[in-house]
């Protein structure tokens, strides 16, 4: 593809968990705990690199949907406030192509005995991401994805 484009997008998700902010934060901070939930879909072949949870620390993950190209996630932590906030930047590659660079902010606030988590992602999406796989799956696949996103 010879056309170079940069499209900006932002989205935010909010969840309330019955667990205290310390526990929710720990699920992001402790590599073993994070591996339990932060992962690619179950049918992907995936591998996980080191995770250094400190400002300037890196995290690396990769995985591929069955029969498709490798998706690679590379993050650098930029800001960590214990039990309150995590900011990191990450880039995604699919095969050799750099698809996006995003800034992710995770905020933890007490909500009664639980925690309100707000996840905001601001990204730049490069060169017209063309997910051949999803195109093959057709419109139905896209709609499934949208529906999943709505839940």
């Amino acid at each position, binding site marked *: 593809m010879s056309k170079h484009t940069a499209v900006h997008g932002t989205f935010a998700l909010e969840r309330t968990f019955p667990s205290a902010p310390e526990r929710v934060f720990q699920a992001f901070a402790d590599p073993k705990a994070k591996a339990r939930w932060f992962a690619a879909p179950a049918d992907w072949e995936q591998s996980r690199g080191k995770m250094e949870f400190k400002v300037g620390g890196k995290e690396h993950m990769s995985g591929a949907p069955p029969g498709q190209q490798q998706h690679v996630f590379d993050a650098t932590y930029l800001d960590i406030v214990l039990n309150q906030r995590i900011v990191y930047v990450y880039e995604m590659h699919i095969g050799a192509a750099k698809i996006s660079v995003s800034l992710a902010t995770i905020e933890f606030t007490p909500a009664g005995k639980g925690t309100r988590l707000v996840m905001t992602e601001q990204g730049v999406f490069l060169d017209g991401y063309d997910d051949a796989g999803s195109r093959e799956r057709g419109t139905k696949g896209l709609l499934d994805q949208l529906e999943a996103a*709505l839940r």
Partner: protein
Amino acid sequence: MLNYQAPLDRAFQALADPARRVMVERLARGPASVSELAEPLDMTLSAVVQHLAVLEASGLVRSQKVGRVRTCRIEPQALHGAERWIAARRASWQRNLDRLGEFLAETEDQPKRRRKT
């Protein structure tokens, strides 16, 4: 700078309604007339037309009137690559946060291993 968020929001909003999802699923199998779309739905034709207007405004569906029959079809290009990617990132976060909730619930019962950080 282009902002692709608005069309994506419209698409999400359009699909938030169960009747509209039925219509879109029907159209995913091929073009259909308004009355064909209305068939499985327990609602008046004018209600179906209103839902169709929302789907058309979202860019997910377009329709064309030939003679007396309005034929509707899905618009596969409705979401550009970037929008699909944002939708994929969003879906991936939703999935992970679901799992985080399960993980927290599973480990809540276990004896607390307090960590000094």
